[in-house]
C-alpha cells in the first residue's frame, strides 16, 4: 500500500511528466489557453493514460513477451493507444456532445501525446507489476492534469497582462512553464522510487 502511494507521489510530483521529464508538452502548450477546455482535456487524458498503461502492460506481458516479439513493443503500444483514444472519443461523443465540441481536434491528438507512450515504455523499464503499472499511469495522469489545469488558469491571467510585445503568446508561456519547472525542483528527493 505504501509502495503504491510512493509511486503516486513520485509520478505526480517528483518526476512530474510535464515539468520534470518534459513529456507531453504539445497538449500542455496547445490546450492551456482556456481553463474549461484544459479541464476537459485533463479528464480525457487521465482516462486514456490509465487505461493505455494497463492495456500496454497486458499486451506486452500477455502477447509480446511469450512470443519473443519484444522488439515490436513501440508499434504495438501505439496501436493500443490509438485504440484506447478512439474508444474514449466515441464514449465522450455519446455521453457529452458539448465536451466533445469543446475538446474538438485535441481528443484524437491524445494519440500523439508523447507522455502516453512515455508512460507505457517507462513503466515497462521499471519492470512494474500489473497494479504498479496501473498506479504509475494514474499518477502520471494526475500530475499531468494538475499542471495543465493550473497552467491554464495562469495563462488566462497572463493573456490580459501587459507583456512586452516580443514576448507575447508562446514565448511568455514557455517562460512561465520554465519558472513552474523551477518550482517543481523543490520536490527533489521527496521519494526515491
Amino acid at each position, binding site marked *: 500500500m505504501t509502495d503504491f502511494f510512493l509511486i503516486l507521489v513520485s509520478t505526480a510530483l517528483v518526476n512530474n511528466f510535464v515539468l520534470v521529464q518534459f513529456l507531453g508538452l504539445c497538449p500542455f502548450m496547445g490546450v492551456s489557453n482556456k*481553463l*474549461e477546455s484544459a*479541464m*476537459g482535456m485533463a479528464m480525457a487524458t487521465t482516462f486514456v493514460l490509465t487505461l493505455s498503461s494497463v492495456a500496454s502492460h497486458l499486451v506486452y506481458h500477455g502477447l509480446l513477451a511469450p512470443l519473443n516479439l519484444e522488439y515490436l513493443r513501440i508499434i504495438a503500444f501505439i496501436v493500443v493507444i490509438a485504440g484506447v483514444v478512439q474508444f474514449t472519443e466515441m464514449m465522450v461523443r455519446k455521453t*457529452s456532445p*458539448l*465536451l466533445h465540441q*469543446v475538446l474538438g481536434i485535441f481528443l484524437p491528438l491524445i494519440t500523439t501525446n508523447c507522455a502516453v507512450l512515455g508512460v507505457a515504455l517507462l513503466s515497462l523499464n521499471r519492470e512494474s507489476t500489473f497494479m504498479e503499472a496501473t498506479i504509475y499511469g494514474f499518477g502520471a495522469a494526475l500530475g499531468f492534469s494538475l499542471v495543465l*489545469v*493550473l*497552467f491554464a*488558469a*495562469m495563462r*488566462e*491571467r*497572463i493573456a490580459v*497582462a*501587459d*507583456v*512586452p510585445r516580443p*514576448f507575447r503568446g508562446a514565448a*511568455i508561456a514557455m*517562460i*512561465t512553464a520554465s*519558472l*513552474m519547472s*523551477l*518550482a*517543481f*525542483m*523543490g*520536490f*527533489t*528527493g*521527496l*521519494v526515491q522510487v
Partner: protein
Amino acid sequence: MGWVLVATFPGILMLTWHFGWGVITNVVTAAGLAVGLEALMVRLRGRAPLVALRDNSALLSGVLLGISLPPGSAWWLILVGTVAAIVVAKHLFGGLGQNPFNPAMVGYALLLISFPVAMTQWLSPQGLFGPEALSLGDVLVRWAGLAEASSLDSMSGATPLDAFKHKPEAVMASEFWASDPLPAGSLAAWRSVALAWLAGGALLLYKRLITWHIPIAMLGAMLVLTTLLYAIDPSHYGSPLFHLLGGAALFGAFFIATDPVSAATSRKGKLYYGAAIGILVMLIRSAGAYPDAVAFAVLLMNFAVPFIDYYTQPRTYGHAAPQRGIRLDPIDDDQERLP
C-alpha cells in the same frame, strides 16, 4: 512599499548584529542592482524610469533577495539573482502588478539550484565585532569574489535546519543536540533573527499593509504539522519551536508569502494559499532534499494562485454563486440568461 522597507529594518539589523557586514553588502548590492535593472527595463519599454522607481517596488524586491542570500555573497551571484528576479520574473510578465511569481523568490530558487555550494555557505554567527568576526575589508574581498576557497570553508557552517536535516538516521534528536553540532550561538542567533522578523511583521499588520490571513494560515499549518510529527516521533522530527523559529519561516510568512501581487486575493483564498505554503514547507523540510523550502513552497503556490482565485471569488451581493468548471449541461446556461 516604503513601510514594508521600514518593517525589514529590525530583521536586517539583527542579521547584521549576528552575521556581520556581509548582510549589509548583500542588501545594498541587491537593492542597487534591482533599482538599476528596473530603470533599464522601464526605459527599454519606452516609459519614464523615474516614475516607475517612485513606488520602491524594485527596491523592496532587491532588499528581500539580499536578505535571503548567505551573508557576504559575491557580486556575480547577486547579479544573476537580481536579473532573474527583476528582468525575467517581473518585467517579462509586464512589470509591477502583473508578475505571477514572487520576483525575489524566483531569483533565490534559481540561485539555489544553479549554485548550490555558494548558496549553502552561511557564515557562522561571529557577531559584528566579535574576536573572529570578518572586518568590512574582508567582507569586501569576498564580495569581489577574490577570497580563497579554503578561507570560505573555515568561516562557514551549516544552518540549524541544514545540520538537523543531515543528522544520521540512527542518532536520536536528544543525542544530536547534546553533541553540540552547530557553531557556538547559532541557534540563539537564528531565533533572535526570527523574532526580529516577527516584530517587522507586527508593524506590517499594524499599518494594515497585510492582512492576518496568510501569515496565520501558514504558521498555523506548520504548527499543527510539526506538533503532529513531533508527537509521533520526537527523536527524528524537530520540535514545533525549532521549525517555527528556524530558517525562513517567519520571514517568509510575513514578507514573502504576503506579496500582494503574487498571492491569492480573496480572504478564503488567502487562507488556502497560506495553509498550503505551510504544508509544502513542512513536507519538503521533513521529507525532501532541501533543508528549507519557503522559496519553493511560495513559488509552487504562486503557480496555483490563479486557480485558487478562480474558485474563491466571493459571491456578489444580489447574485447567485457562480457555477464554475466545465458545463456539461446546456440547460444551466439557458436558466442563467432568464431574467
